[in-house]
C-alpha cells in the first residue's frame, strides 16, 4: 500500500473528486498559487485551472454562502476556511442557511457542500488560530461533521463528504498534516457514521477524535507497561455518530475515557458520555473520564499552551483513574 501524509491524502481526495466530476470545484483564501496556508491544495491550480481552483477575497460569509448557492444550483463545491477560528465569521451562513435550506423548503433543496477547515494547538499560534470548535457545529441539525485522524480516513471521508447531498463541515488538524500513513492503492470511500476500532483492548475504551487518537495510542502503549489493556475507538464522524460501536466497546471493557483537544466543558465528549451512561449504564465499573483542554483561551507562551492542551499523559492519567491505579 502506498504511504501518504495526511496533507497529501486530503489533496489526493480533492483531486480525485475533481477528476471524477466537473461539478466539483474548490474555493478559499490563498488556495490557488500559494496552495493554501497549510500547503494542502498545492498543485491543484496547475491541474484544474483558475475556474475550478478559486482564490477568494477574505470573505468567509461569501465563501461559504457562494458555496451554498452553487451547491443549490447543482455544483458540488468544496470551500476552505483557512482556520476554524474563522468559521465563526461564516457561522450565520453555515447555521442559518446551509443547515436549514433543505428543511425550510420542505425537502425541495439540496446543499451538497463540503466546508473544509483546520485548527489545533501545539505551535503557539495564540488564542485566535488554534481553537477546536467541532462541538458548535455538531449541535446543529442539518449539518454533518467529520473529523478524521489518519491519511486513509481523511481521504476516504473527504470523498464521501463531497458526494454527500448534505452540507458537511470537515475538520482537519494542523499537527496531523505531516503524519504519514498507508492508504489503499485505489481510493476507498469511507461511509459516514462508522467508527473505527483503532486498537483493541479489554480493560478500558478510549473514545478519541483528531490528534487525541494519536495521543491515546501513546498513552495506551504506556498503560500496557502497567498491565492495562486499552481499546481505542475513533468515531471519525461526529454527526452521524456510530453509537453502536462506541457502546459495544464500552460494554466489553466496562470503562471509558472520552478525549478531544477542544475544551472539555460542553465539548463533544459530554455528548458521548451521555450516550454511554444511557446505553451502557449497567456495564460501567467506573465513572466515565473526560480529557480535553482546560477552560481557558489558548495562551501564546509554549509552557502555558502545553499546560492547557491535553497530551498523552493526560489520557494516561484518565485511563488509570478508570481502573483505580
Amino acid at each position, binding site marked *: 500500500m502506498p504511504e501518504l501524509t495526511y496533507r497529501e491524502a486530503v489533496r489526493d481526495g480533492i483531486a480525485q473528486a475533481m477528476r471524477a466530476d466537473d461539478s466539483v*470545484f474548490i474555493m478559499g483564501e490563498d488556495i490557488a498559487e500559494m496552495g493554501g496556508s497549510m500547503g494542502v491544495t498545492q498543485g491543484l491550480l496547475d491541474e484544474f485551472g483558475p*475556474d*475550478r481552483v*478559486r482564490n*477568494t*477575497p477574505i*470573505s468567509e*460569509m*461569501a465563501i*461559504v*454562502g*457562494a*458555496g*451554498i*448557492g*452553487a*451547491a*443549490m*444550483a*447543482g*455544483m458540488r*463545491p468544496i470551500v476552505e476556511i483557512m482556520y476554524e477560528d474563522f468559521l465563526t465569521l461564516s457561522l*450565520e*451562513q453555515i447555521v*442559518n*442557511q446551509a443547515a436549514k*435550506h*433543505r*428543511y*425550510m*423548503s*420542505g*425537502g*425541495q*433543496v*439540496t446543499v*451538497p457542500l463540503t466546508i473544509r477547515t483546520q485548527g489545533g494547538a501545539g505551535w503557539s499560534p495564540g488564542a485566535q488560530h488554534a481553537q477546536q470548535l467541532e462541538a458548535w457545529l455538531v449541535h446543529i*441539525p*442539518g449539518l*454533518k461533521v467529520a473529523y478524521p485522524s489518519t491519511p486513509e480516513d481523511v481521504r476516504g471521508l473527504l470523498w464521501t463528504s463531497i458526494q*454527500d*447531498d*448534505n452540507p458537511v463541515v470537515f475538520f482537519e488538524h494542523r499537527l496531523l498534516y505531516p503524519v504519514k500513513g498507508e492508504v489503499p492503492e485505489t481510493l476507498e470511500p469511507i461511509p459516514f457514521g462508522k467508527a473505527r476500532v483503532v486498537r483493541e483492548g479489554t480493560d478500558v475504551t478510549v473514545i478519541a477524535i483528531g490528534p487525541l487518537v494519536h495521543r491515546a495510542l501513546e498513552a495506551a502503549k504506556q498503560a500496557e507497561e502497567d498491565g492495562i489493556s486499552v481499546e481505542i475507538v475513533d468515531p471519525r464522524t461526529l454527526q452521524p455518530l456510530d453509537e453502536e460501536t462506541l457502546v459495544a466497546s464500552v460494554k466489553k471493557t466496562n470503562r471509558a475515557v472520552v478525549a478531544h483537544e477542544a475544551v472539555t466543558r460542553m465539548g463533544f465528549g459530554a455528548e458521548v458520555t451521555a450516550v454511554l451512561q444511557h446505553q451502557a449504564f449497567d456495564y460501567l465499573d467506573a465513572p466515565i473520564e473526560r480529557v480535553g483542554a482546560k477552560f481557558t483561551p489558548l495562551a501564546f507562551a509554549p509552557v502555558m499552551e502545553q499546560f492547557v492542551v491535553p497530551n498523552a499523559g493526560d489520557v494516561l492519567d484518565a485511563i488509570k483513574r478508570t481502573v483505580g491505579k
Partner: protein
Amino acid sequence: MAKVERETVVGEGTLREFLHDMLLIRRFEERVEERFRAGELPGFLHVAIGQEAVAVGVCRAMEDDDIFASTHRAHGHTLARGSNPRRVMAELYGKVEGVSHGYGGSMHLYDLEHGNYGANAVIGGGLPAVTGAGLAFKMRNEPRVAVAFFGDGATNIGTFHESLNLAQLWRTKTVFVCENNHWAESTPGWQHSPVWDDMSKRALAFNMRSIKVDGQDVEAVYAAAREALEYARSGEGPVFLDIPTYRMHGHYIGDPQVYRSKEDREAAAYHDPIPRLRERLGLSEEEFDAFDEEAHRVVEDALEFAKNGTDPQPEDALKNVYA
C-alpha cells in the same frame, strides 16, 4: 425550455397583466393582514404593500430558468414569479399543500419549480447564495441569471458587501435588486446609511454597473430589469438595481408605527403604484373593478384552499433534516 421573447418596451396587453399581478399581490396581502389580525395565522408576517411594482416588474422580466432569493417580505416576489396563490396561502397556514409544505412559513417561501430558491429571514442572508448560483451559471456557461431581492437595511450587513465584491470580481450572473423602501424595520434610511437616498453609490464602490429606476412605475422597473438581466446573462457581470419604493404599511402586521409620522405614511400612500398604473392604462372604473374582482376571487379561492388544507403530522417535524 422554450424561451419567451420579451420586449423591453411593454405593450398594453403586458401592462394589463402587470396590473393583474399587482392587484393579486395587493389583495392577497390585505387579506393575509386581515386574517392574521383575526388570529388565524401562526407566527408573524411582513407585507410589502406599496412595493408591488418592484416584485412584478422584476419577476416578469426573468426567464423561466432564472432563479431568485427573497426576503422576509416575500409574498409579492413569489406570486409575481408565478407560484400558485393557493399553495402560497397554504404555506402561511402551515399546511402540507404549502409551497414549503408547512416547514417554512411566510418568511421561508420556497418554490424551486418557479425559480424560488428561498425567502430568507436573516437580513442579507441570501445574498451570498445568489452570488454562488450566479457563479454556477457562469461556470457552466448557462444562459441563466440569479436574482437577489433585499432592502436598504441589508446594505449595511457584511454579506451584502462580501457578495457584491465577489460577484463583481468573478463577474457572476447575478442581479442585485435593492428595494429601497427607506425603512430598516423602524429605523429610517437617514439613520442607518450615509447613502440612504442614493444606494447606487454602494455599487460604485465595487465598480459594479447600477441602474436606478422608480419603483412605483412597473413599466420602468420591467425595462430596467430586462436590461440588467440581459447584461448579467451575457456574462459581462452583475448589475445593481437601485429601486426606491414605498412601504405603505408597518414593518410587520400589527406594527403600530409609532416611529413614523402621519406625513410619511401619507406620502407613501400617495406613491401607490396601482392607481398610477391604472391611470397609465386609462382604465374606466368598470374596467378596473373587473381586474379587482378577479384578484379578490383568486385570493378567496386561495384562502378557502388553505383553510381546508392538510395539517402536517407532528412527527413530520423530524423529516427533511437531511437529504
